[in-house]
Each structure stands twice: as C-alpha cells, then as structure tokens.
C-alpha cells in the first residue's frame, strides 16, 4: 500500500488535466494553425464586383423612378468608366485583402509562437522534474547499495576478528 495516497491522487489529477487539454484544447490549436491558410482575397474581389453591379443597378432603378436618362454618348462613356473603375476596385479589394490577411497571419503566428513556447517550457519543466527525481533516486539507490555493502563487509570482518581472537585465546591457553 502506498505511503502517500494523496500525492498519488494528485499525480492522477494532474495527468487528467493534461488529458483534458488534449481533448478540449488541442483541437483548437489545430484550428488556429489551419486558419493560417485562410484567405479573404477571393471573397473580397467577388464582393467588390457585386458591390459595383448593385450600385449600377441601383442607379438604373432610380433613373427609371425619376424618369431621367443619359445620352448614348454619356452611356458609353459611363459604361467604359464603370468597367475601368470596377476592375480597379476589384484589384484594390483583392490587394487590401491580401495585406489584411498577411497582418492577420503574422498576429496569429505570434500568438501561436507564445502557445508553442509555453508548451515547450512545460514539457522541459516536466522533463527536468522527472530527470531530477530520477537522479535523486539513482543517487539514493547508489548510496544505499554502497552502505549495505560496507555493512556486510564490516560484519564479515567483525566475525573473522572474533573467531581469530577466540582461537588465539584457546591456543594460548593450551600452550
């Protein structure tokens, strides 16, 4: 039976906490790491095109409602300008999204670096502690083994000395 049941239980509770991290939080780590591959560039460019179309459609509806028109020449110019601006707007949205993604990725990476460092510190801390226990145990075992051997040697020497002394006394008495 263990001499330290509470310490044994403490060790088991500690292990359970590590297991809980593995079960509940390790998947989150995976999600954060996966999010590094997220890109909003495509969505942003699509959204920019959609915004341009909706703005043009909105203007057309208002002209209908107000009963106003533009000349053919103005319509051609307007269309050309819209195309150019639309293309530029889409590219601009993509470019901004790319920069925003990069900023986000760097911040996420920084957060993951902190997470990794904490995990590494804890791993090395646990390892250091276990190695310290191992060393302390090994040293104690070595010292105990040596003391036991010395003890046995001393007992044997004592027995021999007693035997020799007894024999010498008997021999002296016989002379």
């Amino acid at each position, binding site marked *: 039976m*263990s*001499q*330290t049941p509470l*310490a*044994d239980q*403490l060790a088991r*509770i*500690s*292990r359970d906490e*590590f297991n*809980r*991290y593995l079960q*509940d*939080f390790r*998947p*989150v*780590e995976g999600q954060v790491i996966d*999010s590094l591959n997220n890109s909003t560039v495509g969505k*942003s460019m699509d959204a*920019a095109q959609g*915004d*341009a179309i*909706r*703005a043009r459609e*909105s*203007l057309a509806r*208002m002209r209908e409602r107000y009963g106003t028109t*533009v000349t053919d020449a*103005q319509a051609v110019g*307007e269309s050309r*300008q819209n195309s*150019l601006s*639309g293309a*530029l707007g889409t590219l601009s949205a993509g470019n*901004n999204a790319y920069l*925003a993604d990069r*900023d*986000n990725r760097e*911040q*996420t990476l920084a*957060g*993951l670096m*902190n997470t990794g460092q904490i*995990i590494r510190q*804890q791993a090395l*801390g646990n390892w250091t*502690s276990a190695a310290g226990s191992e060393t302390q*145990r090994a040293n*104690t075992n070595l010292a105990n083994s040596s*003391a*036991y051997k010395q*003890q046995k040697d001393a007992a044997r020497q*004592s*027995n021999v000395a*007693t035997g020799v*002394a007894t024999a010498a*006394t*008997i021999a002296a*008495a*016989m002379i």
Partner: protein
Amino acid sequence: MSSGGSKPKEVKASEGEKIQAQVAKDQIDYYRSTYAPLEKQYADEAGRDYSPRLSGQAGTAGARGMTDTLQVAAAAGSPLDTAALSSGTSLGRVAGMAEGQRLSADGKLNALKVGLGATADATRSLTESSRMQNDSLMQTEQLKLEEAKTKAAGRAMTMAAVGQAAGMYAGYKLPQMRQKQLTQQKALSEATRQQTMISAGTNYRGAHGF
C-alpha cells in the same frame, strides 16, 4: 536492562489533513463538473467566424452612404461612375472580413491560454507529487538500511561477547585439563618405571639360577 523505549505508534492523518483533502476533492470535483465544461464551451465557441456578418454590415453601411450620391445623379440625369462609388463599400467589406478573421483567431488563442493555464498548474502539481512520492520511497529504503545496520552491529557485539566468553572459558578450563593430563602422564610414567624395575629384578634372579 533497557528495552529501547516503547514501539512508536503510526502517525495517523490529522483532522486538518483530512479536512484539507476533502475540501480539495470537493473543489476539484466542482471545478470539473462546472467550469471544465464551460472552458470546453469557450474553446468550441471561440473559433466562430463572424467575417460574413461584419462584411455584410460594412456592405449595408456602404450602400446607405452611396444612396444620396446615386439619387442626385439619377435626378440630374448625369452619368455616374458607380464602380468607383462602390469601391469604398468594398474596402469596408475587406476590413470587416479581416476583423472577423482576427476576432476568430484571437478568440481561439485566448481559449488556448485557458487550457495552457490548466496544464501549467498540472505541471507544478505533478512536479510536487512525484517529489513527495520519491521522498517517501527513498526514506523507506534508507530507514530499512538503518535498521539492518543496527541489527548487524548487535550481531557483531553478540559474536564478540560469545568469543570473549569462549576465550575466558578456555583460559580457565584448559590449564586445569593440562594439569590433569600432566598428573596422569606422571602417574603413568611412575607405573611404567615400577614395572620396568620388577621386570629387571626377575631377570636378575634368573641369572643366578633361582
């Protein structure tokens, strides 16, 4: 003769130790049943992506901002570069999506801090528990060794006493035996000498013809 004192009694758990252990058990059980699930819920929800919602809000706000300009242009029948006008809305959407992504990642990273706090506590308690367990095991072995050492010393003292007694006995008994042996040898020598003389007398008489 001294008996070396009374046998030590086993030190039982004190009332304080028992109460502390029970409180600790109650607390950890409560934490596990109440807060651990909440932490899991936090971890699950922290990753939610609000990018579409934030992007949509930016789009709505942008559209509302464009309305006046569109109305003026429509009423005046003048041409308008609607793509250029909507680019502000698009940039708002980009910012909304980026913010959503950031919020999602930050939420997950914050959840990880909670989990890592738990493992940091577990690291400390594991270190302490293994140290206490090892100390106890090593102390047990060292005490066994001390007991064996004391027993060996006792055996050596007994052996020395037995040897000394044997020597004393031999020192007393052997001279007596030696004396007795000498007396017996002397008596035997005397008997032998007398026998020799008798034998010699018989031979003498024979030489004179008796």
